[in-house]
């Protein structure tokens, strides 16, 4: 009685619409790959690299979605914390895996503090978490610059001349992480069909996935899902709503910090004032490309998303060049697609929310017509 009748066509479109974004990206990739002229081997290698490089960061987004707080645009906070950890270990001359571990240990309290602050602020802005977390990212970026560009070397002791700007304080625009570069990736890199696979990194990511799956089964995970569905009901059942929301952001921020360290060990260079700001946007776009929505995302979305999104990213400049003769066009195209996909996902989410509300009315109308038909 509370199932809305729909024709087969309607059902088809509903399923299509539900998976619209991944399908669209499949289409873009399917068109782009032949035109780009890249070999499958090359693309395969690139996809493996990017999965190992980016998926940790994207998985960090899952927890706040579970708690109904939407896409955590504030994950840049964690990225900043991770970068601060990396700056310190570089200055102290710690490299390799120990350097990574130490950077993670250093980033944890910073991430936790920033995440706690972010969660507090988001609790004050219920209903507009996403735009608020987005602005928090910018705001904390200001403080990050204050610390890194003016504080480090002046107040915070950083002695390595390779890090400090010639003027005597502030970190250089780029920090070489040579001692860290691929230290995790290279521990156990095997060749499969001519593709080099960083097994150890993938194991770490797999462990994180296991953590997420386990986390969903914990009491805290259950509470988060409850809070995500209906804050008032959760509150009435005695769940600490505000605290749960803060914890979800803290976990996400800490994971984002680790993810950033993992990401940068693969790249090998820290772009001190840019990396963190870009990473949030691209992680979110990739997750959405994988078919996630603002209120529902799983591990499957992460890997599908990384693959499709980065395929599009790799392919489009060359495809643009071969199709229209301008590589620049392809570059802009992929930027457009990245932003476009976030826009579409956000719009679809809001539209669905409204349609669900209207559904009740349609049910009632249906009841009326049913009654009349019986008469």
């Amino acid at each position, binding site marked *: 009685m509370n199932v809305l009748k729909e024709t087969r066509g309607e059902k088809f479109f509903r399923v299509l619409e539900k998976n619209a974004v991944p399908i669209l990206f499949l289409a873009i990739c399917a068109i782009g790959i032949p035109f780009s002229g890249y070999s499958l081997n090359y693309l395969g290698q690139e996809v493996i690299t990017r999965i190992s490089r980016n998926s940790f960061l994207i998985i960090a987004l899952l927890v706040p979605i579970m708690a109904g707080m939407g896409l955590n645009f504030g994950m840049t906070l964690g990225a900043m914390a991770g970068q601060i950890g990396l700056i310190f270990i570089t200055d102290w001359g710690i490299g390799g895996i120990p350097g990574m571990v130490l950077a993670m240990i250093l980033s944890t309290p910073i991430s936790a503090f920033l995440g706690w602050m972010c969660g507090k*602020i988001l609790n004050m802005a219920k209903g507009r978490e996403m735009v608020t977390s987005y602005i928090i990212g910018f705001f904390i970026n200001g403080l990050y610059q204050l610390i890194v560009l003016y504080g480090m070397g002046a107040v915070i002791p950083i002695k390595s001349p390779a890090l400090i700007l010639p003027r005597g304080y502030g970190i250089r625009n780029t920090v070489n992480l040579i001692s860290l570069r691929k230290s995790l990736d290279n521990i156990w890199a095997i060749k499969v069909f001519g593709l080099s696979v960083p097994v150890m990194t993938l194991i770490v990511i797999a462990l994180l996935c296991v953590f997420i799956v386990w986390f969903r089964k914990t009491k805290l995970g259950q509470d988060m899902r409850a809070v995500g569905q209906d804050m008032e009901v959760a509150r009435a059942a005695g769940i600490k709503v505000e605290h749960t929301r803060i914890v979800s952001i803290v976990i996400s921020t800490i994971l984002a910090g680790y993810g950033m360290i993992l990401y940068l060990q693969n790249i090998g260079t820290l772009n001190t004032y840019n990396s963190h700001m870009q990473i949030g946007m691209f992680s979110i776009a990739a997750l959405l490309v994988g078919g996630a929505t603002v209120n529902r995302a799983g591990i499957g979305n992460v890997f599908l998303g990384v693959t499709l999104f980065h395929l599009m990213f790799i392919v489009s400049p060359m495809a643009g060049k071969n199709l229209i003769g301008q590589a*620049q066009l392809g570059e802009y195209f992929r930027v457009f697609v990245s932003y476009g996909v976030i826009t579409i996902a956000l719009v679809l989410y809001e539209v669905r929310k409204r349609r669900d509300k209207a559904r009740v009315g349609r049910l009632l109308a249906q009841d009326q017509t049913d009654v009349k038909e019986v008469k």
Partner: protein
Amino acid sequence: MIRVRQLIKSFGWPRIIIALFLLSLFIIAPMVGVKVSSSLSDTIARFGMNGIMVLAMVPMVHSGCGLNFGLPLGIIAGLLGGTLSIQFGFLGGSSFIMAVLLTTPFAVLFGFGYGKLLNKVKGGEMMIATYVGFSSVAFMCMMWLLLPYTSPTMVWGYTGSGLRTTISTEGFYLHVLNDFLKVQIGENFSFPTGMMLFFALMAFIVWAFLHTKTGTAMTAVGSNPVFARASGINIDRTRTLSVIMSTWLGAIGILVYQQSFGFIQLYMGPFYMALPAVSAILIGGASVNKATITNVVVGTFLFQGILTMTPSVMNSLIHTDMSEVIRIVVSNGMILYALTRKSEATR
């Protein structure tokens, strides 16, 4: 005492701190050898440049669409108008008038579509507006490469197609408003009368519109949409109208900006143009659902004042240019403050 406290409360602490900060900058300036007259002149010039883009926030706030984070869309309309006017070979003052005229249909069209979209996503406008702005900028990046512009002043010399990233407005509408009835006092102070008059004209148009029947309806829609609906107002249409107005004002705003700045910045240029305008109006005392012309004037002056004064004063004071950081913290902090406050309407 109570009245003072009430005044402070209505004005808001962050605003008072910012105003005091700016005031102290003006007091310190002469001590560290920064000329107040030229600073003031700069502030006024930048006020005129940015004022209309800040004004573009007002209609959407009034209709309850929130802050116009999608300002880049309007700016794109302005860029189209400006480049077309140059393409068609208009020079001097006429090129500015033509730019305004050519901009208008684009602004209306874009605003219409944008407004329709925002009507579908009531409640989530601000985030979506941000991303509409971003994606339209990225889309236009492709278009600037592809559109068949031919004017040699604008296209890349070596390929002969695709627009340059920056295009000089010299010979076209550079300073057409700035120099109109310009008043020069001493060496360091000049008052761009034409630009200020133009801003005043735009502000008057918005003010006047808000006093008409439709403007009244718009305010009511923003104040309480259910009330407006119960009074027979078509909410969606009113909101769309407000979005069109905001978009158009954004488009005109960028033209004024360009004529003073001297360059048209294409491609990623408009990407983050919304945030300064948003924080300016918030500094002026607006909230997410209330904004007046006074907020625009006060906010733009304070914001641009800080932008002009901090680099010079801070530099002379501590030999470090921390203005960038201060700007980021102040403007984003202000937006955060506005977002976290419970909206004033008791809905």
